[in-house]
């Protein structure tokens, strides 16, 4: 990323621009006046970031003694070291973390539901500070996490505590964190170097079934207060509420939402009805499709792409899976149901196709991103080596970290969002997010690009100007295929490069590229198929020494292919996306357990905090990966 400052005036129009300013006339369109970076690339470049970050402003993070604030999170994303819990009595952090490589962009997305309550309970003198609820929060934060969260985020009828008074939010106390988030984003945004995006998390979850979404804003013009799940608990009505709030905020206010953790939604995330059971209307589906352009397919609470078993024969769906399908399932054995296929994004894509075939509206045209969902205020901390956990190890730490695994064994360090954009500015990145030219990774910075078209050059992979050529005859990831020429079948060029890593932490070579296809047959039934299109499978034993986690020399640094769909049916609605796999590496738990010298063959020697090391349901390796946003085909477009 360039280290030089942007040119604030487009080179072609300095005189005109200056003249207009002198005359006090502002008639040029915003696009003409937008800043351009010196390294702007019209063919677009890959950027990596984290769009799901919690800081001390999130109630649940604060109950785990997270003290990093939005400004600290942005400093961390840019490569500075920050402290994390536990803290000594004098407030000194006992752990320090730092990214090996800075991020290009970040959005701090704190839970909006309890902004005011948390501010009230932690600020002496505010009305309500001495309430019993606030005393509970200060004395028993872990207990308060369950009690207070469930009132606002674990029910279909969220309510506020009496000390909040009437009206949206929790009185004026809600404004303080919301303004802090905006100020931190404003101050950390450095066009052409590092982009910040103002956002928050809408945290609805009836009966502990996760419907969470991150709401991101295109500009600094945002609603006066976030529309949280207390103000609008129904996700189908959220687009309308945010549109109304944006209309008041200003002309440049524009939002998109990124749902996440459908794997914890108990099947609710991709249903076509409201919480009260009434069916969503086509207009609501259209609104949702325009508002929810992306889905977070990977984060620390697991992978939401697809589930093993059920309708799929995709054996690689068994990656970072949670054994329960709701938050209640995590804490109550009786509620711990294994997620079925309806919890996953691939199901949503299929439902979208079916709805489009029936009614002409696809409510789930979802591009893919990954993120961390860190609750330490540490965006992009995805390294499996020395993973510090996503929160405070799930419990208060006092003045020393409990010895053992630093996170629940079923969790993982989370993923990243990849974006193809012309330059590193908020405008360019938001536009890329909106057009879904994005991909998700499970952590490593794999770079992957696809173009899909009706007549791609089969020799594209040999061309040095692949993107220039392919962008002429194809559409990028996230797009909808244009009109099909007679007799044509779609081709997809996939070009992937391994994460080079750093000198002290080199990246991992690639194993293979797959194309995942979904379509709706003439019978109205959804089908899916996975094709290996480049590279080949590598076994765990061939790839990594599980005793030491040393990698063996297998895999390849790049993979590229032009693939033509052999089973294309021009009458069938379809989607395709690419999945790029690294060769197997040690999972974070395997690394931590090996470092601690855990011997599962001697159970009595395993300390309590390391019991998870010997959980045979958890895999010892991980096949890290990237998922590109799909492209869609609709026969009706023809």
């Amino acid at each position, binding site marked *: 990323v360039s280290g030089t400052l942007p040119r604030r005036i487009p080179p072609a129009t300095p005189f005109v621009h200056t003249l207009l300013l002198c005359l006090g006339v502002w008639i040029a369109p915003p696009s003409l006046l937008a800043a351009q970076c010196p390294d702007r690339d019209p063919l677009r470049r890959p950027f990596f970031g984290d769009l799901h970050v919690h800081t001390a402003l999130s109630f649940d993070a604060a109950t785990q003694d997270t003290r990093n604030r939005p400004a600290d999170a942005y400093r961390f994303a840019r490569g500075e070291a920050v402290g994390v819990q536990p803290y000594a009595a004098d407030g000194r952090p006992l752990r320090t973390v730092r990214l090996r490589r800075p991020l290009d962009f970040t959005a701090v997305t704190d839970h909006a539901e309890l902004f005011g309550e948390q501010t009230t309970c932690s600020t002496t003198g505010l009305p309500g500070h001495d309430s019993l609820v606030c005393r509970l929060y200060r004395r028993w934060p872990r207990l308060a996490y369950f009690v207070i969260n469930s009132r606002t985020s674990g029910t279909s009828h969220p309510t506020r505590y009496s000390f909040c008074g009437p009206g949206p939010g929790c009185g004026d106390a809600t404004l303080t964190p919301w303004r802090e988030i905006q100020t931190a984003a404003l101050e950390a945004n450095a066009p052409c170097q590092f982009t910040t995006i103002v956002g928050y998390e809408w945290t609805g979850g009836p009966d502990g079934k996760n419907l969470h979404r991150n709401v991101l804003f295109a500009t600094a013009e945002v609603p006066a207060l976030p529309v949280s799940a207390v103000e609008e608990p129904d996700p189908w009505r959220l687009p309308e509420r945010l549109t109304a709030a944006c209309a008041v905020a200003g002309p440049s206010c524009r939002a998109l939402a990124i749902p996440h953790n459908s794997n914890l939604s108990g099947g609710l995330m991709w249903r076509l009805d409201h919480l009260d059971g009434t069916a969503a209307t086509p207009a609501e589906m259209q609104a949702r499709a325009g508002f929810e352009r992306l889905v977070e397919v990977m984060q620390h609470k697991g992978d939401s792409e697809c589930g093993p078993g059920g309708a799929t024969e995709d054996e690689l769906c068994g990656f970072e899976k949670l054994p329960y399908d709701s938050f209640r399932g995590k804490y*109550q054995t009786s509620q711990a149901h294994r997620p079925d296929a309806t919890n996953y994004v691939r199901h949503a894509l299929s439902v979208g196709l079916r709805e489009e075939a029936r009614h002409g509206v696809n409510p789930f045209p979802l591009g893919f991103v990954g993120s961390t969902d860190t609750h330490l205020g540490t965006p992009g901390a995805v390294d499996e080596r020395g993973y510090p956990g996503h929160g405070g190890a799930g419990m208060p730490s006092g003045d020393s970290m409990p010895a053992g695994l630093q996170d629940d064994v079923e969790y993982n360090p989370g993923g990243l969002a990849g974006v193809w954009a012309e330059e590193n500015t908020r405008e360019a990145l938001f536009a890329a997010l909106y057009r879904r030219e994005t991909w998700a990774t499970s952590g490593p910075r794999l770079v992957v690009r696809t173009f899909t078209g009706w007549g791609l050059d089969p020799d594209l992979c040999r061309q040095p100007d692949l993107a220039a050529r392919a962008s002429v005859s194809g559409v990028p990831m996230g797009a909808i295929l244009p009109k099909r020429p007679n007799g044509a079948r779609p081709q997809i060029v996939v070009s992937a490069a391994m994460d080079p890593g750093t000198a002290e932490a080199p990246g991992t070579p690639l194993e293979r590229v797959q194309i995942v296809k979904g379509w709706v047959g003439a019978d109205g039934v959804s089908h899916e198929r996975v094709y290996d299109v480049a590279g080949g499978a590598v076994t765990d034993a061939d790839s990594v020494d599980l005793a030491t986690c040393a990698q063996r020399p297998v895999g390849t640094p790049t993979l590229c292919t032009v693939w033509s769909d052999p089973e294309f049916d021009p009458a069938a609605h379809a989607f395709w996306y690419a999945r790029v796999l690294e060769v197997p590496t040690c999972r974070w738990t395997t690394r931590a357990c090996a470092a601690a010298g855990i011997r599962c063959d001697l159970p009595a020697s395993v300390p309590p905090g390391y019991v998870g090391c010997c959980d045979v349901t958890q895999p010892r390796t991980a096949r890290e990966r990237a998922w590109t946003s799909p492209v869609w085909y609709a026969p009706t477009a023809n």
Partner: protein
Amino acid sequence: MDLSPRPSLRSLRVIVWIVGLLTVPVPFAMLVSGWVPAAWLWWVGSVLATIAITEHDYTSSLLGGAFLAQAALWSALLYVGARTLVGLVTRTTSAHRWRPAIVAVVTALVVMACFDVYWSPVTRRGPRTNIAGVFG
């Protein structure tokens, strides 16, 4: 409290019981699990019950009820334990040794409580902590 040379059995039982309520770690399980004094369960349960009433809060009522139920269970068991212990002391020692024996038991419990014998995942200082960490 009768601490005369020959205290009543009732007062001995009550002393041992109360100290037991305040110090003996008992297991609890409600979303998280741990080992804490039964008195702490009463305290937390009462706070949650109050919130449940004043804020009409469903989760607080569920959690508060669960804490109070466990507190009641352990309090009853600790009373039985205190009664048994005092009975053992009064049956096996002469009357003038009752008080020193009970003081020894109480002292042992208090000393134990000063060590990290509790596992309290919901308190700010923890989870492994001592009596000060649990009630502090």
